[in-house]
């Protein structure tokens, strides 16, 4: 694999990475929608879900895409045309940029940089601009309220998300996601290195905080006030239809996948499975599949919680973030730092 990549020119490698990025976003979003949104929730509610299109309804998604593409792309008369039309692309851009730092194997990466997780946190905050653009540009009070709620929520939960990551960074001594994977693969638990040292064991508090904050960042129930359908129709997405609604929809599920992948890299060892040498060439093929498997497990958790819990109230949401998650994350950092120096 290394020799193969070394022989290709810069533009060839870049094209491969571009194609891989597209596949990663669309395939992950599609899998999540089919496996979790269509099927899992149906089984939870004792029904079959889509069954007509393809075996077990597996082609339902293509039918949905066909439906959305045929719909008229309506822009409200008083809306700000350009801002309204550009908003979904800003959100989707943020998702694609997030993907860039993820490693899929020892040589299967998009970029590997020391910035790693810091870059991911920075570009994830860009999507807020897109949500505000959608909320304001629609010229609708439901959209504006949804946009404002989304912004307040995303700002509040970015903090615990970042602080939860710091514990992992201290333990791995790097922000580079590739090296965080290797630190877990080569780590040992009190001298016992059979399964490496997945940080979910030592950073369990960090993992829980990260998953809760992630649920809020993705505006999934119980943190779905921005799109609360009984109050705001669908929040900032209310006025969108056709292709642009589809873009928001893809963005929502692709972001769920990418955030889960980041969680998998930080806490579950990313593309590594115990028992193999992390430098093995096999991981360049197996790694992305392993990562995908871990993503499906983590998103299963996200959607399980989404379809189980009722919605929070706005003040409860803010209280949970500022009075519980942030202090807990700070305590986690202090304990991790002390143990790092002492042990």
């Amino acid at each position, binding site marked *: 694999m290394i020799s193969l990549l070394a022989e290709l020119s*810069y533009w060839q*490698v870049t094209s491969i990475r571009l194609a891989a990025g597209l596949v990663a976003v669309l395939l992950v979003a599609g899998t999540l929608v089919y496996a979790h949104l269509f099927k899992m929730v149906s089984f939870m509610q004792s029904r079959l879900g889509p069954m007509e299109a393809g075996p077990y309804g597996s082609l339902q998604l293509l039918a949905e895409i066909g439906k959305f593409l045929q719909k008229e792309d309506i822009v409200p008369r*008083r*809306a*700000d045309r350009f*801002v309204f039309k550009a908003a979904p692309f800003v959100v989707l851009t943020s998702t694609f940029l997030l993907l860039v730092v993820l490693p899929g194997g020892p040589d299967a990466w998009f*970029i*590997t*940089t*020391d*910035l790693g997780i*810091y*870059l991911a*946190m*920075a*570009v994830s*905050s*860009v999507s*807020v*601009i897109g949500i*505000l*653009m959608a*909320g*304001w540009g629609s*010229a609708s009070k439901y959209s*504006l309220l949804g*946009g*404002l709620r989304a*912004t*307040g929520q995303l*700002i509040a939960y*970015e903090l615990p998300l970042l602080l939860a990551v710091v514990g992992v960074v201290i333990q791995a001594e790097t*922000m*580079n996601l590739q090296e965080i994977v290797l630190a877990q693969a080569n780590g040992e638990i009190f001298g016992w290195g059979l399964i490496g040292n997945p940080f979910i064991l030592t950073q369990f508090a960090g993992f829980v905080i990260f998953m809760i904050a992630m649920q809020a960042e993705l505006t999934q129930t119980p943190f779905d006030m921005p799109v609360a359908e009984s109050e705001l129709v669908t929040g900032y997405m209310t006025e969108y239809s056709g292709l642009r609604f589809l873009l928001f929809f893809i963005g929502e599920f692709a972001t769920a996948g990418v955030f889960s992948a980041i969680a998998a890299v930080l806490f579950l060892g990313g593309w590594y499975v115990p028992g193999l040498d992390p430098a093995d060439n096999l991981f360049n093929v197996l790694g992305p599949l392993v990562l995908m498997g871990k993503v499906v497990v983590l998103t299963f958790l996200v959607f399980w919680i989404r379809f189980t819990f009722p919605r929070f109230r706005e003040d409860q949401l803010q209280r949970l973030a500022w009075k519980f998650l942030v202090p807990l994350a700070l305590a986690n950092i202090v304990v991790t730092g002390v143990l790092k120096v002492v042990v």
Partner: protein
Amino acid sequence: MTPSGVLAASASGGDLFVAQNVFFGVIALVMIVSAIRCVTTRNVVHAALWLVLVLAGAAAQFILLGSEFVAVTQVLVYIGAIIVLFMFGIMLTKASMGDDDSVATEKRLMASLVAVLLAVVMGIALIDSYSDTRVVIDEPQRFGAVSDAIFSQYIVAFEAVSVLLLAALIGAIVVARKE
């Protein structure tokens, strides 16, 4: 291809970076146009959005200069936090669609005076310090090197800034708080 760094391998071409210079020009043009539109548009939300382009351009220029850390911090702090707070504030108070003629025009003179003054001061300072120096970027500035510098050489300044920010934070809460 360097295996690491946002910046792809570029330093091998000697002193003159053609691609860098071309992209510097392109990004600078976008920044100038956005900056002008930012102060001439009559819609406050549009002004904030044009400002996003200016700040994103600045981040891109930092990447061209090989300063990864500054570039990402620019995105995180300015685009991710400050602009979002701007827009949040605008939308909470008044977010009228279309042009708003009440957007201050009478302060234009003072504002342009301040802008010209700032440009002159910064220009003189830059020319005075770097007039004949050629900055050669052999390789991007590593994240680790930045943190090493902050926590050894500049530790006093860093701690002073932290305390200042904390004081500002507490001050803001005290001012905003109602009994």
